[in-house]
């Protein structure tokens, strides 16, 4: 028998989005809330975010939410839903003040206000020049957000189930009834019955070889809802951040370029001047990553293999670097043995952020199809969700903003819903599927190792489906994925224990990653245009007549994949060519 629990609202995930959702759900005194997380909350990857959270406070120079909304839409290559961008740009201002009221230790201007700096794609007066919009706490903004929200959750006495790994979603007759989770410390299965379930489980960057994402970011819930027949929106739009440490992918924030850092090729040339004459190194990430790849392809990469680019901070005052970018300076010193104050840092694009995810309304309700049919009792927020704020390419600092704006909305909406409805019945045996999957893996006697399949997945996704794609590479990747999926069935585990069987969980996570890769590759193959982070060498232009629509990827009952669409919410910003 599974251990049973009952809460009005269950939040899955304890990063920025999950903690914000829990805080707001719990403010509704009529509902009982619990948070389930496979990591201890403070281990969540929100803590790795560096550069800042974008909000038009205007503390350093004039700024307006309107400008922020425009930049977000243009940065998203017009695939952003414009109502979402407008709401976001206005609400994020209050949300940032609210973090400050919770004690978040932002860096300060000389006047004592929240400090702000420049970031890629954020401009004044609809694209004129870069504006200081990123509110920051040195290069530890995400750490401060995560710590502050966790601290407040202690104050608010939030109930946590830490180191509980969610394996399944209970979806009966089209409505969500809770989740099934595996307790890492004991190996027990638990069923959580809920009126409303909020998914806030973060990204899936571990499907790529070079990534800024934590080991834990394996897209679990993007896979789980997909297995339950729900769609994933826009998975082909996956962001590569220009400045990952060479080979290991650890991120160096765009804030480094915001403070004046310059990208240089092997000739020392500031090549971004050629690609984005007005904002240069602060062009949006998709453009900078492509420019770096092109420089490398054309023989202007740095190093013995000519396969990286230099991030040059040496002309910046050493004191500014130590004060505003201390952590990334340390990363370069430790992991590459390079001191950014004295020499340029070898960097390469690193897999960073999923623009797509579980489709939601502006109120974070999960939708089941291209018509926007809502799944009762199911909500999603944060990187796992797609509202769609980021469209085809996210601007830096807009994810932390997304967490606090839509995490808050999810908490409020889910609690309102839970206070209004009764529990739907929880059928017996909802834990069977998860149990059988674990039994199958434990009993398997094949000779495959999860690590080998994962490595092949990561290598081939990098080769065939990363910054540049073609029909040929994607078709090849479809075949590779089918083969890896077959081999996955042969994976066996050595650890037959119940206590912290981390090997078993890594196998489960690999299964989730394979699904995430499938979603991305099918969607990318389907979209025969280039837009934002999705760049097809065989279809280099954006095609608004055919493709100004969201992708919706479904898995059919027989295991085949179906790709559908969902309309984009347009608004006052007419799609225009994206030049900077």
């Amino acid at each position, binding site marked *: 028998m599974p251990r049973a629990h009952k809460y009005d609202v269950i939040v899955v995930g304890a990063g920025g989005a999950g903690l914000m959702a829990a805080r707001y759900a719990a403010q509704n005194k009529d509902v009982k809330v619990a948070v389930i997380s496979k*990591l*201890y909350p*403070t*281990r*969540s*990857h929100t*803590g*790795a975010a560096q550069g800042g959270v974008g909000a038009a*406070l205007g503390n350093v120079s004039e700024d307006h939410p309107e400008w922020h909304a425009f930049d977000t839409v243009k940065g998203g290559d017009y695939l952003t839903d414009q109502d979402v961008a407008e709401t976001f740009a206005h609400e994020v201002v209050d949300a940032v*003040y609210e973090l*400050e*009221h*919770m*004690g978040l*230790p*932002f*860096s*300060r*201007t*000389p*006047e*004592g*206000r*929240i400090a702000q700096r420049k970031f890629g794609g954020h401009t004044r007066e609809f694209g004129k020049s870069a504006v200081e919009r990123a509110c920051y*706490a*040195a290069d*530890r903004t995400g*750490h*401060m957000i995560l*710590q*502050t929200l966790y*601290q*407040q959750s*202690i*104050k608010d006495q939030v109930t946590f189930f830490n180191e509980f790994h969610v394996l399944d979603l209970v979806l009966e007759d089209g409505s969500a009834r809770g989740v099934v989770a595996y307790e890492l*410390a004991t190996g027990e299965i638990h069923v959580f019955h809920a009126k409303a379930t909020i998914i806030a489980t973060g990204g899936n960057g571990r499907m790529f070889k070079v990534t800024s994402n*934590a*080991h*834990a970011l394996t897209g679990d819930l993007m896979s789980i809802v997909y297995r339950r027949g729900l769609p994933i929106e826009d998975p082909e739009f996956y962001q590569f951040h220009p400045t990952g440490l060479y080979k290991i992918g*650890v991120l160096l924030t765009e804030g480094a370029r915001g403070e004046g850092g310059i990208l240089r090729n092997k000739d020392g040339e500031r090549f971004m001047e050629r690609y984005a004459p007005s904002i240069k190194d602060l062009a949006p990430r998709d453009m900078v990553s492509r420019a770096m790849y092109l420089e490398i392809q054309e023989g202007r990469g740095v190093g013995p293999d000519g396969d990286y680019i230099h991030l040059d901070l040496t002309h910046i005052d050493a004191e500014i670097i130590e004060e505003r970018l201390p*952590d990334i300076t340390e*990363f370069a010193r*430790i*992991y590459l*043995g390079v001191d950014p104050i004295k020499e340029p840092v070898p960097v390469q694009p690193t897999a960073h952020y999923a623009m797509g995810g579980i489709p939601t309304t502006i109120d974070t309700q999960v939708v089941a199809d291209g018509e926007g049919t809502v799944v009762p009792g199911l909500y999603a927020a944060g990187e796992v969700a797609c509202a769609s704020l980021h469209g085809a390419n996210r601007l830096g600092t807009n994810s932390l903003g997304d967490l606090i704006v839509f995490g808050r909305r999810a908490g409020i909406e889910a609690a309102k819903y839970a206070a209004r409805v009764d529990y739907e019945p929880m059928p017996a045996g909802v834990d069977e599927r998860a149990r059988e999957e674990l039994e199958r893996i434990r009993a398997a006697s094949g000779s495959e*190792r*999860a*690590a*080998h399949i994962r*490595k092949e997945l990561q290598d081939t996704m990098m080769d065939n489906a990363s910054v540049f794609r073609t029909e040929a590479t994607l078709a090849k990747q479809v075949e590779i994925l089918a083969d890896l999926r077959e081999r996955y069935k042969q994976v066996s*585990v*050595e*650890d037959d*224990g*119940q*206590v*912290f*069987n*981390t*090997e078993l969980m890594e196998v489960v996570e690999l299964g989730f990653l394979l699904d995430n890769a499938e979603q991305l590759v099918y969607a990318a193959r389907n979209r025969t245009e280039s837009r934002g982070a999705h760049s097809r060498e065989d279809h280099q232009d954006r095609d608004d007549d055919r493709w100004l629509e969201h992708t919706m990827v479904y898995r059919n009952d027989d295991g085949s994949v179906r790709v559908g669409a969902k309309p984009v919410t347009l608004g006052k910003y007419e799609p225009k060519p994206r030049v900077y």
Partner: protein
Amino acid sequence: MDATTPAAGTSAPPPGLDTMNVTVKIKRYDPEKDARAYWAEYRLDVRPTDRVLDVLNQIKWEMDGSLSYRRSCAHGVCGSDAMLINGVNRLACKLLVRDLGSSIAVEPIRGLEVVKDLIVDMEPFFDSYKSVLPYFVNDDPEPARERLQSPEDREIFDESTKCILCAACTTSCPVFWTNGNYVGPAAIVNAHRFIFDSRDQATDERLAALNQPSGLWRCRTAYNCTEACPRDIPITKQIEEVKRALLWRQA
């Protein structure tokens, strides 16, 4: 346990000029199988630039899947993987093989109950942390915009905001080893974080919480915590500052 070499064609680096052979001793314990902990030894080829975490992963992925430890971010920001490595508390993801040489010994951090291999029960650590009111308190009506704070006032508690709750400091403290009830350096750092924040109003309560028999005064300034901190927080100095704040209030 026998020494083993990794399988070919895997995430292990090919043996060659830029690899080295290391011997890794790991203190292992599986509560479902072992009466007590024992040392297991592994020999493998790694790159000098590999993190100790990469080495543990290589062992887990290629040699023995049952090896268990916590990890997530892999670059020293999430606090999952504090371990006793060659006798000192370190984050496995923030320490490179080339800084250790060819023999590496890894044990769980001390003073917390071992659950399995390198995984310890962190609950007592977090309970101590929670006991110092580690959250911002200010009951004044909230201003429409931010509360003001000068860069100088912000600087006073900057170092203590860096804590990632990895427990490297607390579990390196000899006082904590002999008295598991001692609130420990990590909790004091997190109290410091708020005591010296010009916007906070709960200093009295926090100092009262620290002024308990198992509180602040147990510290014998051994400096182990300061040396162990992977975030370079000057912990001993901060503990002294909190002690002074308490004496000042009492006077």
